[in-house]
């Protein structure tokens, strides 16, 4: 209903204009139309007995229609399709105000914040579900969930949203999109329009997975295991489709960031000088480019297994194949989540210690080798299904991977050694992250051992282990990074007492919750069960109490960061005395990041006597990789026409 807006036009407007519909609402409307069109078409050509309006096949096609309608409605139609076809468009990118976060944008900083916003939304939804799970586990019998399948669906939604809409998204789509261009002195990303579209696939994925119970329960967790999924009701369809949308979004991020790092580095920013955080992003983006197409193919095959049905992974086909294909992606996925955290440790520690980064090359080599080894360990998730001869190589590589991971620790500890480190809130989060990941890593060494693994498989020990690695690395480092970059993101800062208090409460609640998971696991607490033997109740009960405190602590941090974003004290331009390029422009950075193209003239991680300021803002317009002019604020892709536009300076 287009109600009468205040009419600010004062006569020079060429024609009266109806206030447009908010893009998000238009996207919902067009998604509903898209769904109805395709769903009805499929029902018409492929009716089921009894004529239900929504069937398995029809909902799959209807979903595709809804996703297309959603993207068109959010801005694909006005901003991309119309210009592409040569039609005039009213679309104009908004340069300021809160509205630009709720529509299609091409500014990587807006897109980065959109990713963070959606990721935090996914985190809060999935975290809320975790609270329900812990409430259920306070008693050894079913309470708030009526049947085990309801509980399993909740576990599945929790895991899927946490992995694909938060852990993979926050640091890469969010912080990566925001900071990678800034840190390499770029003025925008290469595929900015594609990136602006890709971010809107995240809400598609979150809502699809969240509403999967409408189609029925599914029991497979975040892994969609076949042939178990063959036993599931149609809810599993929305798992495949939702994850398809989420991984597609992350794939676009990876493509865009790798291309940006390759082609848009500032002059002087050689690969040897590339910031650690950017190295972390490049390595995980390569991992995503390799493995996401693989898992998307697998999910499409599983989807066809269900709706056609074909028999790729069912008992008629090969049940173990799905497990192999899933974990081929699944273990690199763990490092896609963790490697940016390793990178951020060594980004923040030298700044807070004001001491040169120790063994910088080794820190980078560690990231790259973790990336490469991560593709060789997948079968350790399936030791119970393998023979000893097949287990051993995977056990070997799994234990090997702790060596390059150790390089990240070595650089961090080497930098901290004899330094006068400022133990402020970001630093505290980073140290907590390193401690938690150490616990996660050490318990992982136990799991890499086949004999122990066969005992601990599917117990809470494993659940404790991966929560320590994922939350311990990614979430704690993520909070560290947000507190570190808050002055950059908002121009404002936080109160150290509040920041540290919240960090310490979160750390204690986290450890009190998840360290007891190891004990529960050793005592025989199984995963995937809402009802368990009564002797495990006391510990489960108190674990749940700590889990609720942890949930409240995370929420408290998010609210406090939001408060400081708007109301915090004004921060200085470079409050931590960092040397990476993102601090050499105003906070928050203007539309094209730097008033002129900066040049990198020294190492970004050297501190102490005789070191120089590494970033200078020269008048040169050349990039490290290209010689295209980018100084023009009206810059667009036409400048990249083969004749070059002739504007190189």
């Amino acid at each position, binding site marked *: *209903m*287009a*109600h009468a*807006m*205040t*009419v*600010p036009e*004062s*006569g020079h407007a060429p024609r009266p204009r109806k*206030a*447009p*519909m*908010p*893009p*998000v*609402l238009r996207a*919902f409307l067009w998604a509903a139309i898209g769904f109805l069109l395709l769903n009805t078409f499929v029902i018409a050509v492929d009716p*089921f*007995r*009894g*004529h*239900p309006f929504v069937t398995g096949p029809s909902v799959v096609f209807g979903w595709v229609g809804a996703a297309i309608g959603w993207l068109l409605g959010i801005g694909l139609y006005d901003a991309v399709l119309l210009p592409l076809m040569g039609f005039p468009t*009213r*679309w*104009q990118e*908004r340069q*300021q*105000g*809160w*509205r630009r976060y*709720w529509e299609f944008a091409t500014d990587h900083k807006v897109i980065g914040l959109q990713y963070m916003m959606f990721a935090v939304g996914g985190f809060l939804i999935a975290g809320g579900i975790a609270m329900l799970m812990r409430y259920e586990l306070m008693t*050894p*019998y*079913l309470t708030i969930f*009526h*049947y*085990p*399948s309801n509980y399993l669906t909740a576990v599945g939604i929790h895991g899927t949203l946490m992995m694909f809409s938060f852990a993979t998204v926050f640091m890469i789509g969010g912080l990566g999109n925001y900071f990678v261009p800034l840190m390499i002195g770029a003025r925008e990303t290469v595929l900015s329009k594609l990136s602006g579209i890709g971010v809107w696939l995240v809400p598609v994925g979150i*809502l699809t997975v*969240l*509403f999967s*119970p*409408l189609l*029925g*329960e599914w029991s497979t967790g975040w892994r969609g295991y076949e042939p178990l999924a*063959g*036993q*599931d*009701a*149609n809810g599993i369809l929305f798992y495949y489709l939702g994850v398809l949308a989420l991984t597609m979004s992350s794939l676009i991020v990876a493509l865009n960031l790798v291309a940006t790092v390759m082609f848009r580095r500032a002059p002087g920013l050689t690969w040897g000088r590339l910031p650690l955080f950017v190295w972390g992003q490049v390595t995980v983006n390569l991992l995503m480019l390799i493995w996401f197409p693989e898992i998307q193919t697998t999910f499409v095959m599983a989807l066809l297994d269900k709706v056609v*049905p074909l028999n790729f992974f*069912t008992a008629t086909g090969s049940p173990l194949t799905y497990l192999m294909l899933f974990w081929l992606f699944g273990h690199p996925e763990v490092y896609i989540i963790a490697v940016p955290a390793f990178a951020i440790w060594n980004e923040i520690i030298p700044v807070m210690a004001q001491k040169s980064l120790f063994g910088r090359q080794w820190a980078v080599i560690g990231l790259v080798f973790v990336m490469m080894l991560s593709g060789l360990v997948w079968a350790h998730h399936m030791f119970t299904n393998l023979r000893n001869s097949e287990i051993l190589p995977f056990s070997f590589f799994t234990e090997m991977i702790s060596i390059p991971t150790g390089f990240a620790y070595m650089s961090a500890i080497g930098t901290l050694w004899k330094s006068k480190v400022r133990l402020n809130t970001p630093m505290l989060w980073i140290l907590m992250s390193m401690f938690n990941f150490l616990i996660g890593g050490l318990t992982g060494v136990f799991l890499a051992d086949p004999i122990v693994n066969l005992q601990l498989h599917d117990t809470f020990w494993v659940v404790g282990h991966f929560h320590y690695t994922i939350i311990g690395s990614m979430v704690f480092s993520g909070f560290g990074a947000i507190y570190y970059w808050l002055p950059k993101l908002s121009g404002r800062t936080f109160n150290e007492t509040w920041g540290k208090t919240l960090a310490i409460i979160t750390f204690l609640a986290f450890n009190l919750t998840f360290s007891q998971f190891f004990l529960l696991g050793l005592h025989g607490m199984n995963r995937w*069960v*809402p*009802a*368990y*033997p009564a002797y495990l109740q006391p510990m489960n009960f108190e674990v749940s109490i700590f889990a609720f405190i942890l949930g409240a602590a995370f929420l408290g941090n998010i609210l406090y960061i939001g408060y400081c974003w708007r109301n915090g004290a004004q921060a200085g331009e470079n409050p931590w005395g960092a040397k990476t390029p993102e601090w050499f422009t105003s906070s928050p950075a203007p539309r094209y990041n730097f008033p002129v193209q900066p040049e990198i003239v020294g190492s970004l991680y050297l501190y102490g006597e005789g070191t120089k300021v590494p970033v200078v803002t020269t008048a040169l317009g050349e990039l490290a990789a290209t010689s295209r002019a980018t100084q023009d604020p009206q810059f667009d892709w036409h400048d990249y026409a083969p004749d070059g536009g002739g504007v190189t300076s």
Partner: protein
Amino acid sequence: MEYESPKDEKTPNTENSEENQWSRRQFLVGTAAIGVAGAVTLFGRQSLVNAARSVFGSPVSSGTVHLYAYDYYYIPNYMTWRVGDRMEVIFQNQSHTHWHEWTMGRHVNEAYFQAFGNLPADAWQEDFWDGVPVTLSDPYGIDNFVPNQAIVTYVGPKAAYNIQSGGDFSPTLKPGGSLHLSFTVPNKPGLWDFGCFVQQYIHYRTGMRGQVMILPA
């Protein structure tokens, strides 16, 4: 005009000066409404459906009725019958992979649905088909049939029905199987549940269930 005065030009909300402005109120109200609608669909579907049925009622089916079994739901999952009507239910298993049955009764003891406890041998405390005369015909792909206390007439050779004992009145069909059940709706008015208890009640728990409202004659 008033709004051209310099005072109004300096409106504090700088957003309003931008082109292509969409309404903040529409955005907030619209997304909140979609959120509420989403929550209701996710958690309150059944209550909505029940409320609609109690207001608008539901058409009485008689004569030939198709009952299809899929994984894991029935179409239809709600029917209204009237006492004394002559019915022929054609029960068909449409699943490509799963065995499905049709049982009907009242009161499942759900306390038994636990990982560490007993599963009940007889699912319904009260079997709808107790003492009901029913004629079975056109058996195809029958895995087994348990008559329990029903008074059953079999059309054709009995071997095709694979008659077994134990448990409720329950025709269990192989994938693609079908069976015709002809009967006069007995004088048992009220709300009856039906469901599929195959695979240790997993089908039932996953949502393979429905209801029949029987109206007095």
